[in-house]
């Protein structure tokens, strides 16, 4: 954000009940301004639900606080200027151009029946430039590869100029190189703009490599949180993922997770 101010994010006692089933129970987290928090956990743990509830897309109990503002007290437009969200499978209208899609990020700044200003277009153009997407501006979304698509979704979120970025599985369906490219990009933007980033990530090694802190969710509850080395431990992963793994410290001290085949195969 301009001005160098960063916004810490706090969540207290967040709970989501869908169709009578408690999907997230009493979840709490905190991320310092400009930090990257990764939410990890087995399938069905409630990771995406947690993110959606934080964005206000699902009915929930508990509090989400950005800076010193309770998100619940905000109008949707005000909230969208504080938190930007990219879902796991964004729906991309096939004929819409990259530029027009990016420009949608200005929605929270445009009056209900108003239209985009020259400044909105400028901001969208600048974001595309920054993400090396300027050459794609006029291309329809249907004509993008998976990696390009993920970058365009990021561009849309950045155009929102919100200090908090919620990304649900930003590397889904990307090959190794593109996963790295997208996560490096998120990190560069985080450092450059002081963005507070929360991502769900199913790949534990990636989560351990990029995030400042991890939150391990299982059965809708937070079962561990803290620096990657404290969360990615062999006993915790065995208990909550039912996986046999070996965890070793990488060159930079961050944990690397390796799957182990059973001995009796």
């Amino acid at each position, binding site marked *: 954000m301009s001005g160098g101010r960063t916004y810490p994010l706090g969540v207290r006692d967040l709970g989501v009940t869908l169709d009578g089933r408690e999907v997230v129970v009493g979840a709490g987290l905190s991320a310092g301004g400009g930090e990257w928090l990764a939410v990890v956990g087995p399938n069905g743990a409630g990771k995406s639900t947690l993110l959606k509830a934080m964005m206000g897309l699902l009915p929930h109990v508990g509090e989400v606080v950005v800076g010193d503002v309770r998100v619940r007290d905000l109008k*949707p437009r005000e909230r969208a*200027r504080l938190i930007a969200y990219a879902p796991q499978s*964004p729906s991309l*209208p096939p*004929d*819409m151009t990259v530029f027009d899609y990016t420009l949608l*990020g200005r929605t*929270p700044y445009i009056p209900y029946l*108003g239209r985009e200003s020259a400044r909105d277009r400028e901001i969208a153009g600048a974001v595309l430039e920054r993400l090396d997407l300027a050459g794609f501006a006029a291309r*329809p979304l249907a004509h993008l590869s998976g990696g390009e698509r993920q970058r365009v979704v990021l561009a849309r979120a950045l155009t929102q100029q919100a200090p908090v970025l919620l990304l649900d599985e930003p590397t889904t369906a990307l090959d190794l190189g593109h996963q790295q490219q997208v996560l490096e990009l998120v990190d560069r933007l985080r450092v450059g703009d002081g963005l507070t980033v929360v991502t769900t990530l199913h790949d534990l090694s990636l989560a351990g490599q990029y995030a400042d802190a991890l939150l391990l969710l299982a059965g809708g509850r937070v079962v561990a949180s803290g620096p990657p080395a404290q969360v990615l431990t062999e006993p915790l992963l065995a208990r909550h993922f039912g996986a046999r793994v070996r965890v070793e410290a990488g060159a930079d001290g961050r944990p690397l997770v390796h799957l182990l085949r059973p001995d009796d195969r």
Partner: protein
Amino acid sequence: MRTVTLLVAVVLLLASMAAGLLVGAAGISPKGILLALLDRLPFVDVDSGLAPVDQGVLFQLRLPRVLLAAIVGGLLAIAGAGYQGVFRNPLADPYLLGAAAGAGLCVTLVVVFLGGEAGVATVPVAAFVGAVGGVSLAYAVGNTAGRGGGTATLVLAGVAVTSFLTAIQTFVQQLKVEELQRIYSWILGDVGGGWEQVWMIVPYAVVSTIALLLHGRLLDVLSVGDDEATGLGLRAGRVRFVVLLAASLATASAVAVSGLIPFVGIVVPHVVRRLAGWSYRVVLPLSFLGGAAFLVLGDLVARTVLAPAELPIGVVTAFVGAPFFVAVLRLTRKVGT
């Protein structure tokens, strides 16, 4: 680019309206018609040389008929575009939420139970009330059945309400089979209602059209889905409600004066999208202009091919519209994906 497209559509509409005024069973001279029209302009005084009876045909029959066709066609097409935007479904049409079934039922009721002249006079009001009532019922059912009023539940509610109302309508018709022809001639559509009906729908047409045109950008935002639109700070449910309200008002007023004309509401927005792109800021105004031109020409065909007899306009729109639609689909196949 956008301005040019709009201008082309306006010219197309004016040309079709000119054709609608110049061609007809009475065989009035085109020159006389043009002069008579000029004569009606402020500060212009020319002698058209038209006999009073021809003047009557022009100003009391053809002109209101062309205007009514244009307004009805425009309303149905822009309402269809609005429905397609709200439901993010290319198969949505203005009758999706029970407008047609509601109107059909109420018209049947007044024709059967009031009968005669009183019944005929009440038809427009009955159709309007029925269309609004059908959509309201579907909306209420959809909202109570589905959490947060999702679009899928709403469509299903529309289907259920349509079958239910149609069943009642069929039952009532069976009670009084001798009225069937009158009911069906209303259903098949007619834009020959004269000035009275033009003035009747103009206020509704203006309000609903302006409301829809103002929502073009918001429908574009909705096209990325409810969750993301909400994430962008839009109250998706409210936008959907307002657009549905405006589109249903447009549909109800069109149905009130013209019956259940098929095809315009679904085909015109598609053709527009194929030719002019995805954005509702373009699709909505072009649908109105295109729908207006399409129905004026449709009516021209309906009253001339078998002159002096007339075909029901609903038959013509489907008969001419379907091959036209297929042709556009084929021609633009490479552009679409």
